[in-house]
């Protein structure tokens, strides 16, 4: 369809048992662009994100990230364990609840995958990890265990951990939803910096103001379908669909925090 795109999702279908969660999703993400994914809880945002790195296996459609393509049709063989692992090594994912490895220091968390998966020499992985932790503002926490870090610090370690694999794209699943309000800014700042550096990103978020500021395109999902899609500012400021209007108005009423992603 669009060979220039970094991520290309075609006719994606996913169901859990009899519950159809994604119905014919099509999505392209241009290199270096940021796509924000919004929608009510249960609309399938997390599932869509997890289909992009094949953490869940779709029932149908096609998923391409960079040069790696997998098709999921009745007659094609499902990818094997090693193929899947290689595919996922090229996509970074950041989770709502951080999922740091509690038995490793911040440095250990960031070094782990390059050493185990890419067989990088330890010294080299260490240098890279230290640089990444400095980049997310945690140079002084490299030897701390996750239990001694604040939520915002944990999430920044998690971002550094994903970046250590030098992924082609970064996927964020409500990266700030589990944080105390005063810690949201420091994580959004790191995400904004990544976007400015040209990382291709898909972010599921409830930070509408941040999405308006940082995202190039915005997708509104409901009940497993894309209801509306367009330039982020345009969709947020003047949504066309009634469902989008209703969802966004709820946000304004609830008094979503102002657009203050720190530079």
């Amino acid at each position, binding site marked *: 369809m669009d060979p220039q795109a970094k991520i290309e999702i075609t006719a994606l279908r996913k169901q859990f048992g009899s519950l159809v969660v994604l119905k014919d999703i099509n999505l392209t993400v241009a290199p270096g662009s940021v796509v924000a994914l919004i929608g009510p809880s249960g609309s399938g945002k997390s599932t869509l994100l997890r289909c992009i790195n094949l953490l869940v296996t779709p029932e149908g459609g096609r998923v391409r990230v960079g040069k790696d393509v997998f098709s999921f049709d009745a007659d094609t063989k499902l990818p094997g364990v090693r193929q899947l*692992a290689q595919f*996922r090594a090229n996509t970074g994912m950041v989770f709502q609840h951080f*999922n740091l*490895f509690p*038995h490793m220091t911040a440095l250990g968390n960031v070094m782990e*995958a390059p050493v185990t*998966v890419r067989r990088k020499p330890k010294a080299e992985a260490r240098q890279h990890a230290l640089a990444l932790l400095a980049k997310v503002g945690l140079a002084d926490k490299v030897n701390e265990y996750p239990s001694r870090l604040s939520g915002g610090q944990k999430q920044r370690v998690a971002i550094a*951990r994903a970046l250590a694999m030098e992924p082609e794209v970064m996927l964020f699943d409500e990266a700030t939803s589990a944080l105390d309000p005063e810690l949201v800014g420091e994580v959004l700042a790191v995400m904004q910096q990544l976007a400015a550096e040209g990382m291709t990103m898909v972010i599921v978020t409830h930070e509408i103001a941040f999405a308006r500021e940082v995202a190039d395109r915005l997708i509104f999902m409901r009940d497993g379908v894309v209801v509306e899609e367009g330039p982020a500012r345009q969709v947020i400021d003047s949504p066309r669909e009634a469902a989008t209007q209703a969802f966004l108005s709820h946000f304004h009423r609830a008094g979503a925090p102002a657009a203050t992603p720190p530079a």
Partner: protein
Amino acid sequence: MYQWDFSFLWSYRWLFFQGLGVTVGFTVAIVVLGLVAGLVSALANLSRFGLPRWLALSYIEVFRCTPVLVQLVWFYYALPVLSGIEISAVSASILALSLYGGSFYSEIIRGGIVSIDPGQNEAAAALGMTPGQAMRRIILPQALKRMVPALMNQSIIQFKNTSLVSVLAVPDLLYQGQVAAHDSYRPLEVYSAVAVAYFVLLFPLTAIVRQGEKKLATSD
């Protein structure tokens, strides 16, 4: 009134030491082999495939639901008839006690693995780790820490179960005690000494386990 007299035991000291050596050697062997059997069957039990799961489950249930003494006797007297291979009392004992312990270790290990937050496996997978790498580097190190007290408890039971090998005339501590008792006609002193020897070896171990449990309770 019975006249206690422990002084004659000194002349049997070498017999007791030999027995103790066999008991400790057996314990080491059946703890190590039992842990291997337990780990392998726990991983098989958690497999995505049906056959390994079924095999592991059959093994665990057969060994958990028959008395260990029956297993011991079965491996020594029945297995050779069935397989046509002669098996020594020592091999039969090690086989039976390791497999018996393994069936309990297996459930402890499986429980430890499934107690780890699924988010850990997801994070590992998202970074490009294979399921094997995730198990080895992320899940098992965390799970093992939680399992240690239960594994130690089971190992203490393994230690005590070694006394059963005396029924196959393997010269462990209890068997040598029987020899000394028949020889001296003083079973009261001999068996008391044997019981004390087991206690002296095990009591410090249980204290360590209790300490470890306390530490674990405060650490998370």
